[in-house]
């Protein structure tokens, strides 16, 4: 029996889809059987980030409505053979996502995979609550920025109230993934500190992902960032996060500003 993970945040644009693809690929490279599931019905994007947009035939809604078998809708990754994608529907109404249907699909996936990673849509409505409903583990993706932290706090509240585990008196295992961390701004004192965010949200840290062009370059290519350049700082941060998910103890490294003396003076990034 595999574990269901929800990658969630409340706020949009913080890196849920990027993180889903990156962690999914990292876990699959260890040999684990992984499926990444797009829950963003109507605005699917995980297929693009995974580079499988031209291979989508059936989707999650088709499976829920019995128009396709689960095995028909799953897309096997061309790079890592234990990695699969279950895409969302791009055209259908999000109301077609039923609680019973979602439960059946997740249960079936958990029987066949070690990890079922659900990429949640933004917000706190039906889509996001269904995506988190059957989760064993939650990865709360947060930017070191006040609106993102506030929304994550809200999502943590929902994870403690609106999930099957919560209703059964158990707890969803929650992890904080701090993304788009900019070391130069942190050093300038203009970005929320890691410790501040941890203290405010009070859930354990899964990893810190630096703000990097690696992410944009990887999504341009349709490759999870962990497969695009395995030695990039971003990829390494995601690999470490994946190892922590499996229960390994890996010390967290806070990204530092690697620009030299002259870089700091002349190489100021545009805000």
């Amino acid at each position, binding site marked *: 029996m595999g574990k269901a993970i929800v990658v969630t945040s409340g706020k949009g644009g913080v890196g849920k889809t990027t993180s889903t693809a990156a962690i999914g690929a990292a876990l699959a490279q260890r040999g684990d059987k992984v499926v990444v599931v797009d829950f963003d019905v109507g605005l699917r994007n995980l297929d693009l980030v995974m580079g499988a947009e031209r291979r989508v035939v059936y989707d999650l809604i088709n499976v829920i409505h019995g128009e396709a078998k689960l095995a028909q809708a799953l897309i096997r990754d061309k790079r890592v053979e234990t990695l699969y994608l279950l895409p969302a529907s791009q055209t259908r109404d999000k109301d077609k996502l039923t609680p019973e249907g979602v439960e059946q699909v997740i249960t079936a996936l958990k029987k066949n995979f070690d990890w079922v990673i659900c990429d949640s849509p933004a917000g706190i409505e039906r889509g996001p609550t269904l995506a988190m409903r059957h989760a064993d583990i939650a990865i709360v993706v947060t930017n070191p920025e006040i609106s993102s932290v506030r929304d994550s706090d809200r999502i943590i*509240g929902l994870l403690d109230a609106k999930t099957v585990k919560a209703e059964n008196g158990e707890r969803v295992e929650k992890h904080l993934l701090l993304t788009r961390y900019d070391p130069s701004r942190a050093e300038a*004192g203009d970005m929320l*500190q890691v410790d*501040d965010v941890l203290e405010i949200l009070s859930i354990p840290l899964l990893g810190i992902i630096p703000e990097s062009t690696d992410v944009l370059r990887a999504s341009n290519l349709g490759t999870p960032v962990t497969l695009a350049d395995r030695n990039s700082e971003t990829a390494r941060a995601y690999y470490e996060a994946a190892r922590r998910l499996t229960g390994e103890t890996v010390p967290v490294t806070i990204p530092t500003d690697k620009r030299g003396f002259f870089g700091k003076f002349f190489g100021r990034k545009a805000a």
Partner: protein
Amino acid sequence: MNIFRLFVKPKTATTARDRLQVLLAHERASVGGNDLVTILRDEILAVISKHVKVDDNKVYVKLERGLQVSTLEVDVQIPFDRTTRRAA
């Protein structure tokens, strides 16, 4: 004007942290979106309007949230009315 301000911008991260802590302390207290302050304001106004006519446009509600103490300031202007005066 302080000449050093040209070179050293004040750091903003601590302000962000303090604002968040105050805000979240309140949001966590009001579960399910039932904001205590909103309820208080509505009920206070309901009680007042039971006894005197209140013009909705003459009601000012101010809220100041702090980590330890929050204040709710309700300023209701009661129009001069002969009938209520006589009754009293």
